[in-house]
């Protein structure tokens, strides 16, 4: 196991008015490993992710990527930092005015300024990696099922060969079979390609399949963190309640 910390979060705080959402989050993510943050709905998982990738500005704290605190970076350096990221959004966030391959190649064309035919051939390779063939490349996003949209979104998130990939509830709204397919694809894209991953979810089944380590967010703090095989013996009552889906604490 590599011990190089690629992403370090220290004392991250974020409030909206008087509502404290993140109250001093501390996390480390190791190179080539996947950390899954679990927690009930409304506990601030998405806010945590948005603070890390720069869509929200935290009130205080440190987000270090490759040893560099990215919170205080000017916008052009922050944009350069974004090029290391791939993000899969909860709803896919695909551009419905563009075709499937244009969605996958969007970052390539915008970022690297490569021509459209080269971008298209790269997009087709990425689509093949997520199990979609050339036939879907020219389709409109509205012609795809929910599961296919997630695959296209996954293909887009790996199109730039990112060093980090962030997943926001990637299996929400999918049937169990498609959930399993997406989980396997995520594992393939992270472990096989050696990408460092952060996934937030409330789906404990997905967390077990994808994670190397799991952390639980509760009331704005990480209350437990450990290897995936230790979660059943965590000894934490909130973790036990969450993984067993119990309505009340024991």
């Amino acid at each position, binding site marked *: 196991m590599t011990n190089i910390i690629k992403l370090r979060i220290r004392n991250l705080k974020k409030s909206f008015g008087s509502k404290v959402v993140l109250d001093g989050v501390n996390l480390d993510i190791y190179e080539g490993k996947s950390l899954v943050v679990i927690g009930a709905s409304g506990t601030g998982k998405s806010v945590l992710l948005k603070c890390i990738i720069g*869509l929200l500005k935290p009130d205080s704290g440190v987000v270090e990527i490759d040893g560099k605190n990215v919170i205080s970076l000017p916008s052009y350096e922050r944009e350069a930092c*974004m090029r290391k*990221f791939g*993000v899969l959004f909860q709803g896919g*966030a*695909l551009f419905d005015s563009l075709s499937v391959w244009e969605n996958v190649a*969007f970052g390539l064309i*915008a*970022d690297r300024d490569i021509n459209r035919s080269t971008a298209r051939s790269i997009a087709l390779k990425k689509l093949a990696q997520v199990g979609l063939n050339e036939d879907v490349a020219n389709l409109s996003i509205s012609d795809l099922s929910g599961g296919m949209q997630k695959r296209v979104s996954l293909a887009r998130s790996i199109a730039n060969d990112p060093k980090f990939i962030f997943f926001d509830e990637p299996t929400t709204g999918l049937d169990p079979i498609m959930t399993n397919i997406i989980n396997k694809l995520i594992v393939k894209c992270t472990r096989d390609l050696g990408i460092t991953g952060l996934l937030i979810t409330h789906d404990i089944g997905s967390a077990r399949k994808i994670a190397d380590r799991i952390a639980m967010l509760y009331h704005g703090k990480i209350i437990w963190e450990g290897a995936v095989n230790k979660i059943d013996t965590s000894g934490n009552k909130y973790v036990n309640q969450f993984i067993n889906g119990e309505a009340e604490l024991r």
Partner: protein
Amino acid sequence: MIQNGSRMNPLAAIGRSTITFLINIGRVVLFALSTICHCLQPPFYFRLILRQFIEIGYNSLPIVGMTTLCSGMVVALQSYTGFAKFFAEEAVATVVVISMLRELSPILTGLMVAGRVGATMAAEIGAMQVAEQIDALTTLSTNPYKYLIVPRVIASIIILPFLVLIGDITGVFGGFIIGIYKLNFNPASYIFFIVQYLEKIDVITGMIKASIFGFLITIMGCYQGFNARKGARGVGVATTNAVVTASIMILLTNYIITEIFFIN
């Protein structure tokens, strides 16, 4: 209790509304300034600017043409009714030209484009905001201002003056049709009166107005879309606000420009 009491106090309510109103004005101004800065810096998405030329300009031609044609016809009819009482029927052509070029064509074009294009912008960008597509743009190293707003602003500022020019022509043509076929004017003398009172400054001020209206329409459409709240209702409210605020600003700005150019 104190909070409830202050909520019921009409003065406190007026104060709160005033502060909210001023905050919103400040946000719109900052949004507009930020957009202007982005308009001056590369990269420029020329393909998207071209697409907006078609969306804002070409696709608005029928509605602008119909509105100004009918308005020109109505102005000719109404002014004839009025001037006939003073035996000044020959002034009809003059009135149609001046009213169309100075006021009606820019205002009607602005309002029509605000209704058609401003609403579309707010709804489209609002739906993108709700679906996290704007966040996705940011994560794909693409500045949403440059990708979504700048092409719309540049296209509007350039294309609206041409729409107004076309509105001028169709409006004057509408008056001409009524003058010749309904009011039995001599075509040669009607054209003579048009040309005699056609001034360059009227055409130019109409086009300047149109450029400013284009900027206002896109800023309000994009601002409302960017700040749309989640859900279908949020997008609906953003769309309504975009059209209403753009229309009010067009009418206010029109008065200010008219005061600057013509009342001296």
